[in-house]
């Protein structure tokens, strides 16, 4: 449970990896519940990404601080407790200061508790590496998650409403593809974007 093995990734490597090479949405396919559920608008997607990022950062730092005391068979309990606490804090905070957003996201904020990105990072990185490395890892993964969510949200919001953040992007004549902001639109968009990402990153392809 220490980070003195020479082949453990450094803080910078962890940070970079989270953004694209190990992007939580497109490469690890983790945390798909919020990815599909709250990406019908960019604002909701960014709020969700920020809340998840906050929880991920706090959980990673906390886990890393107590990593020397963790017992293998009790570690999952500790991770879950840690994550649930910070999710509750994020939930209360949104309800106090971003009330409308908290109502829009509804149950999906408490559901961050079961977002597997967070427990995955606790297990893979924070329970083995130093606080600094874990924090960079959390920031990298959060940026990657935000990138994943906002890319889907941008496509869905533009095609579904012709607007983004209340700014009209497509001409008024655009017949809003309502299905894009409904649940099926999430699957269409995610599937197509995933195919594009896979195509672009196919090994040996230039």
């Amino acid at each position, binding site marked *: 449970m220490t980070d003195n093995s020479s082949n453990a990734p450094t803080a910078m490597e962890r940070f970079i990896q989270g953004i694209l090479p190990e992007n939580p949405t497109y490469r690890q396919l983790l945390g798909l519940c919020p990815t599909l559920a709250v990406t019908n608008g960019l604002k909701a997607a960014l709020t969700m990404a920020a809340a998840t990022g906050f929880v991920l950062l706090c959980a990673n730092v906390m886990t890393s601080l107590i990593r020397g005391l963790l017992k293998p068979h009790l570690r999952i309990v500790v991770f879950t*407790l840690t994550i649930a606490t910070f999710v509750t804090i994020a939930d209360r905070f949104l309800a106090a*200061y971003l*009330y409308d957003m908290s109502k829009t996201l509804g*149950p999906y904020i408490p559901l961050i508790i079961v977002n597997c990105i967070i427990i995955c990072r606790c297990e893979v990185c924070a329970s083995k590496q130093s606080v600094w490395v874990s924090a960079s890892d959390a920031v990298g993964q959060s940026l990657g998650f935000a990138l994943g969510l906002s890319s889907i949200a941008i496509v869905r919001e533009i095609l579904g409403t012709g607007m983004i953040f209340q700014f009209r992007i497509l001409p008024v004549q655009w017949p809003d593809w309502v299905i894009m902001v409904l649940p099926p639109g999430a699957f269409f968009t995610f599937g197509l974007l995933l195919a594009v990402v896979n195509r672009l990153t196919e090994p040996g392809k230039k």
Partner: protein
Amino acid sequence: MDWIRENKIMQAWLVLTIALFFGAMLAGVQIKLGPTIEKNRRNETLEKVPALVLGKEGADKMAAENRPPLITPSTITVDKIGRKVYYNVYAVRDKGELKGYGIKTNGQGYADRIELLFGLNPTLDKITGLFILEQKETPGLGNKIVTDEWRSQFVDIPSFPALKVIKGKASTSGEIEAITGATISSRAVTDIINSAVSDLHQPLMNAKDN
């Protein structure tokens, strides 16, 4: 000393310690943010009341003329068999004239309690509108109770006889169309309104006579 090391409680000392620590942290957060959250919820209620009672146009017009209606909140306690039920009632007045009531109430939905706000006219025989404040119904099915489309069925309909939920097309204005796949949620909302209307009829009539 082996029995100490083998003891399950001793092994879990870290879990117990951080559970206590996190519990204290959450209590702190709740103490700090609780009042703000409560205020947000109250403001939301007060914002919705005029439109529910006066209709959207009426409320917008008053807001544009910068003479918001006077809203007087009160709590009415109704004695039911073996228990007490509380209702938050918001009386809406314009230039001293009673325009109607906004009523906040809650009841069991399909997933969790549903909290809602509905409007009644001054003579209590018409429901003037509905707004869902809090619900955790199934996303995609039951949570359609919040949509304008479904709620528009509750605008200007007779409050007596009790509202009835039907599957398929409603033929008269006392009937509410169930959401496909969410009959329980639809029925829950309607039942909550029906029981509030029957509970409050007497107390509100008495209050007006005084």
